[in-house]
């Protein structure tokens, strides 16, 4: 910003004016949706809209024992009305997300449809759970129009009736371990990309120009090939009766019965992701390595350094920015990977993005999906910020 200050106001306005249309477009078509996602995580109006009287009466309930008859009458009336316009089951689903088993309690209550005076007895008869304070607590919690509960769930936390934060019971802690697994897999993929990418980047950078160009093309071919094509290629190669296993059996390295399970598990995810992301490691490395003057290494060696010393004392530090940029980019892209794990990951090779997709498309717990997405967004945002500091987002090069 300070650098721009030196230029006349009109030039600054013109430059900003050129960027403005895209900034506006990205804000509306990309950033606003991200905002909408975060809103979805905290805004849950359904229960608040359909059970207003019940929730108002529950405000004065101290959480001990069961609320008074007025609350029973209100909930019976409002649930019956919801049943009539077929939203009772949806309310049940929402309350069920607070405490499992509540769906059937709510639906039974909605079907009871008693008269005012006998509401308590009728609901208790429909399902004895109506006499438990937990049921009412669940309704009150599900009735919060704005809630951070989804974020708590995304972090495997929950709140007890008295407001204390507790960790979920062990068998329900799935999102934090999954996030950790995602980070671990991303780190492994980054490491693999580095181990495979650094040597070939060096080869490309140090080869004669014509040869270098050809070798670079070999990196760019998969880079340009559709992700789905590459993913189906890996299925073809890795499946039990696929090309690779066939080759191993033909070579006698693996017995017919001992064919390796290379796909539809974590192995498949790792292999395919490394393949997909390798060019993102190689390209920044090549551009940094090309900038290392050839004679520095020769100078070092002529001064008596061994090849190893020359590499570790001179070449490695000089290429570190490329390593950092490539690694961060690969790591960031890996964390958000969805398609590859979904297609080749089986059930053990799924990552956090797949869980978001699951809650978006299958369980339809959009609030939770959005909250997990929010957590992922924070992680990726922090890494992107770091990347911008290290490499500068504007320094990205595409081949």
């Amino acid at each position, binding site marked *: *910003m300070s650098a721009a200050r030196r*230029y006349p106001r009109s030039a600054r306005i013109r430059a900003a004016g*050129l*960027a*403005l*249309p*895209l*900034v506006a*477009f*990205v804000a509306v*078509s*990309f*950033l*606003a*949706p991200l905002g*909408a*996602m975060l*809103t*979805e995580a905290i805004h849950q109006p359904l229960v608040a809209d359909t059970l207003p009287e019940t929730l108002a009466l529950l405000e004065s309930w101290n959480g001990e024992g069961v609320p008074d008859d007025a609350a029973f009458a209100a909930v019976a009336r409002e649930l019956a009305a919801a049943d009539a316009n077929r939203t009772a089951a949806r309310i049940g689903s929402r309350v069920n997300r607070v405490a499992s088993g509540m769906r059937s309690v709510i639906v039974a209550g909605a079907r009871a449809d008693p008269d005012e005076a006998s509401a308590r007895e009728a609901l208790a008869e429909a399902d004895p759970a109506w006499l438990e304070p937990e049921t009412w607590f669940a309704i009150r919690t599900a009735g919060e129009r704005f809630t951070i509960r989804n974020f708590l769930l995304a972090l495997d936390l929950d709140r007890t009736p008295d407001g204390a934060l507790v960790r979920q019971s062990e068998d329900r802690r799935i999102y934090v371990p999954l996030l950790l697994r995602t980070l671990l897999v991303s780190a492994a993929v980054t490491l693999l990309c580095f181990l495979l*990418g650094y040597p*070939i980047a060096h*080869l490309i950078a140090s080869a004669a120009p014509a040869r270098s*160009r050809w070798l670079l*093309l*070999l990196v*760019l*071919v*998969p880079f*340009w*090939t*559709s992700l789905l*094509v*590459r993913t*189906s*290629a*890996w*299925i*073809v190669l890795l499946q039990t*009766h*696929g*090309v690779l296993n066939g080759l191993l059996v033909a070579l006698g390295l693996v017995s017919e019965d001992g064919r390796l399970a290379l796909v539809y598990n974590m192995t498949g995810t790792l292999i395919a992701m490394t*393949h997909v992301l*390798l*060019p993102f490691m190689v390209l920044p490395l090549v551009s940094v390595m090309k900038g290392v003057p050839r004679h520095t290494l020769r100078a070092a060696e002529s001064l008596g350094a061994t090849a190893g010393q020359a590499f570790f004392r001179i070449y490695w530090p000089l290429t570190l920015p490329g390593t950092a940029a490539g690694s961060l980019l690969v790591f960031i892209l890996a*964390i*958000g990977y969805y*398609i590859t794990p979904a297609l080749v990951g089986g059930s053990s090779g799924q990552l956090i993005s797949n869980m*978001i997709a699951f809650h978006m498309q299958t369980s339809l717990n*959009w609030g939770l999906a959005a909250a997990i*997405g929010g957590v*992922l967004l924070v992680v*990726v*945002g922090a890494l*992107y910020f770091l*990347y911008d500091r290290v490499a*500068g*987002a*504007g320094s*990205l090069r*595409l081949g």
Partner: protein
Amino acid sequence: MRRFPNPRRMLYLGFCSLVFVFLVAPVLVIVPLSFNAEPYLTFTEGMLRLDPEAWSLRWYRELVTGGRWSAALVNSVVIGVAASVIATVLGTLAALGLSSPAMPARRFVTGLLISPMVIPVILAAAGMFFFYASLGLTQTHLGIILAHAALGTPFVVVTVTATLSGFDRNLVRAAQSLGAGPLRTFRRVQLPLIAPGVLSGALFAFAASFDEVVVVLFLGGLEQRTIPRQMWSGIREEINPTILAAATILIVFALLFLLVVEMLRRRPGAASS
């Protein structure tokens, strides 16, 4: 040193060759398998014996005759072209602004404009599902075009900025001192020089849209099926060589794209990394 094959260097070259095989082989293996006469994804014995009976164009015929793929191709092209036009126009303008030394808050704005490339698509797609639904844009071509344009702009910004970084700003000053207005300067001086960058940016944006499936999964309906969406259901549901035939065609596309971009990059005067 070169004359005596140094074992360490041989090892190094051997390792590099294996990595190159790892990069390219999966793509290449698909091509012959797409001519399999049987509905399997492995090389049959007949194929290995080069028995002509074992090879056929059966899956390509299925691709052409099974209406879904051709409809998907039309969708992919329409969406890809529209999205890349939007992305290219907006992205080129923004790159011109960003590469001006007078650009205020350049670092922040660049970071913002590149973010669609870095932020996981699944998050964008989920958000778009909520936001675009409230605008009635789900299950429309327009919704997907806008989404793909947003995802494609970083590619244009990056490539055009790269071209502009080698651009001599004195040319602009010279043109202006000779009396050319800003628009004229742009059209007659800047545009011809950055045209290769703009074109490869456009190709990148098109390719990004042409390969995108997550947004289509979340926003698209039956009428917005694209090629990758069709491949997605193919892989998940009924993986047979039709997928490989489609994949082979996409590989040919990719090679063509790559060659065009390489030619643009190597055009004399086109400065880029």
